[in-house]
């Protein structure tokens, strides 16, 4: 029995009829065709599917689409504004925080949450906060450098966001 849900995704209200067992990640990928959010595992370990839901980073493979009814979702596609990269996106490129790019959307969305919690994080805090995101390519070195640099860039721009923003 399909149910109709209304979800604001990247600022746009989307009303769709979905199966109750449909996961949020498949709603994003298969129904809305937002394929930037990736599926890297089936046990909620890899974090490739991380999106922002009502301001909090969530693994969209652990949430049913129907649970997102009424929620505001930001995916990787909605992070750049007016053609300008988000500072985290820019920092990932500048500091070689990606290789194959598959974990990258989830990693960037997790980094966004991380910097909301810790606007000036230590390396230990970054390593700890990335525990739910697996990268097989970079050894995390470039990712950590990118997140440190993004924190600096956001602080300089006075963009350091507060929790829940």
């Amino acid at each position: 029995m399909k149910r109709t849900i209304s979800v604001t995704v990247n600022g746009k209200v989307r009303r769709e009829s979905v199966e109750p067992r449909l996961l949020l990640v498949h709603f994003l990928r298969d129904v809305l065709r937002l394929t930037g959010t990736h599926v890297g595992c089936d046990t909620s370990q890899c974090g490739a599917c991380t999106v922002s839901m009502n301001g909090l980073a969530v693994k969209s493979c652990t949430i049913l689409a129907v649970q997102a009814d009424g929620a505001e979702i930001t995916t990787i596609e909605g992070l750049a504004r007016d053609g300008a990269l988000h500072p985290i996106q820019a920092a990932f490129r500048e500091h070689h925080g990606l290789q194959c790019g598959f974990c990258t959307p989830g990693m960037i969305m997790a980094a966004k949450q991380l910097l909301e919690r810790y606007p000036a994080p230590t390396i230990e805090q970054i390593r700890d906060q990335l525990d739910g995101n697996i990268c097989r390519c970079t050894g995390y070195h470039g990712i950590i450098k990118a997140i440190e640099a993004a924190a600096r860039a956001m602080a300089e721009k006075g963009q350091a966001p507060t929790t829940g923003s």
Partner: protein
Amino acid sequence: MTGTGIGAAVRRKEDLRFITGRGHYTDDISRPGQAYACFLRSPHAHARIRSIDTSAAANLPGVLAVLTGAELQADKIGNLICGWMIHSKDGSPMKMAPHPALAVGKVCYVGDPVAVVVAETLPQAKDAAEKIVVDYEVLPAVADPAKAKEGPQIHEVAPRNTIYEWALGDKAATDAAFASARHVTRLDIVNNRLAPNALEPRAAIGEYDAGSDSFTLWNTTQNPHVARLVISAFVGLAPEHKLRVIAPDVGGGFGSKIFIYPEEVVALWASKRVGRPVKWTCDRSEAFLADAHGRDHVTHAEMAFDDKGKIVGLRVHTIANLGAYMSTFSSSIPTYLYATLLSGQYAIPHIYCEVDAVYTNTVPVDAYRGAGRPEATFVVERLVEVGARELGIDPPELRRRNFIKSFPHQTPVIMTYDAGDYEASLRKALEIADYKNFPKRKRESARRGKLRGIGFSTYIEACGIAPSQAVGSLGAGVGLWESAEVRVNPTGSVEVLTGSHSHGQGHETTFAQLVSDRLGIPIENVSVIHGDTDKVQFGMGTYGSRSGAVGMSAIAKALDKVEAKAKKVASHLLEAAEGDIEFKDGKFIVSGTDKSATWADVALHAYIAHKFSGQELEPGLKEGAFYDPTNFTFPAGCHICEVEVDPDTGEVTIVGWTAVDDFGVVINPMIVEGQVHGGIAQGVGQALLEHAVYNSDGQLVTGSLMDYAMPRAGNLPSYKVDMTVTRCPSNPLGVKGCGEAGAIAAPAAVINAVTDAVGVEDIPMPATPQAVWSAIRSRAQPRQAA
């Protein structure tokens, strides 16, 4: 060098689509009318199939087809093959068992595909797969390679489950060297089995077009042309010219996406059967069962020294687990990519290595990042380190005494090293790691109740795979050259078509850097096209750290031809003799004059062809090249790992990592360092965390990311990465390759450090807290003589 030329840390062109979520990985692609495939896999490691009843599944809503090995045979679909012939010591060929894409008569590992359901939706396909009834007669199984020869026979063609018993080197001379040695170091080594786990799971979309009677396969592959060749020539699904293979963005490979697997063959075949595009995307837990694993060696090794600490001989016996079937290149990994590297960085006069490859009831084992070379490095670097400890010689000093110092150097195991300076990388690494103050740091750790250790790995690898004639003489079924085509457009922009394939390596940037450097044009005006057999004429793909040394060399060769042709055009345009035309900084100049033409002028004139007749010069500016390397390349270096061990818990913390590598000429240092970081992470994963474990029944115990310990950010250190450079004389660019070095060097460095800290040599990989804690406890027991 321009700002975007060779040696510049150019930020990657491909990143923009990846950081904005606009990449196109296989599973992101949807074809009109596509149906979905789900495989039913064997739950048993070894069983005879008495019968398969698909009727209940076939009658479920949405189900388009339920196919088994019977239909495969009815359609005369050929078996998967291993493309590298190895002969045993007795001259007999390797025992390659039939490998159908869907099981025929029996299953040989947990995960062996038995049937496929194609349905309108994936949930329908999954539901239907559960309704297939298979009557199995379960047979005894063997998973441990050390027990394979005594285990139940898996394939008729392979008595004692033995694929080959191969040897390399001079046994008599090596035995004689051991007889006269002053000291012999002996080790029993298990090189632990690993699951590659590229973050993007494998996926395939097969599409048959009845109008043109042709197929298209979108596939997560590192080598689309090789996939097309095998699927055409051996599986026989379609002739090569009627099969297009597209490898779009691919999310990591590490070897596991080289091979031609059952699932893509079945998706392609099923698409013709059901008349619809068929998509299959692997689940992660399914990937643990279905993707080729790596490593899995059981080795006894001995190194003989004279009274001055010089290595006089090396003897190695390895049992290599190749799993239930022979995967695409599996036979070559524990032989020509392993034993040929056993000389390490050392002048060892006599080496003898025996390798027994065996079948077991486990998923096939094939190349995984490093592929044979990490196993060889682990053997050599553990022996050297333990030998130094036993002889009471400082480990770096023992290495120094044995380093090869003049080049070219012919080892006793086939390879001719062309260039290197092992002393230079060791010296630099010792400085960066502050080795001389290690005792001070060790005392400081001890004050905090921690055991500190330091471990070295002066590794070598053979990359730039490989000269075709040489590998052909060793049994390879293919040539290992690479192709490139450089197309110059009338406006002067350039498209490079390459047979290499990027799945994280950044070729769209580095290859464009070469073009920018050579032609003096902005890097934005260069596109690199790869991964489509309809666009790129042929290619051997990316593995074995070959894309720089072989793939880029092919581009360089094509650029030579482009430049030569462009000079002819310029000579007409500038009304000068061709021999007087110089090409420099993107300009064609008539020597000794101020007459010049820009690159764009010449490109335009090559196409409009107004300044020359078609009889004297062909219009256009497009050249292709096939480059076959003259030798392997030999990247080498020194990695130093420093660890702290908590004696109460056995937990190992890496507190320092120094890597000094010699990759020859570096095109993009940022990308090269990234490759080193990632390689080390996988090597540290092998040494401390990762292990694909089968129980004695052949059940995979570590079948998901909940059970298989992948390295996470908190498990890894920051790395100090530096380089030394000796130019590679074996290719026009002087490059050696960097993709695998970290994974090759790291495991030995870690285990050498952990064993140094703990004072016990017998610590297995992965050195989990439990393993290390047990080793620490064992110190109280009298140690067995080696």
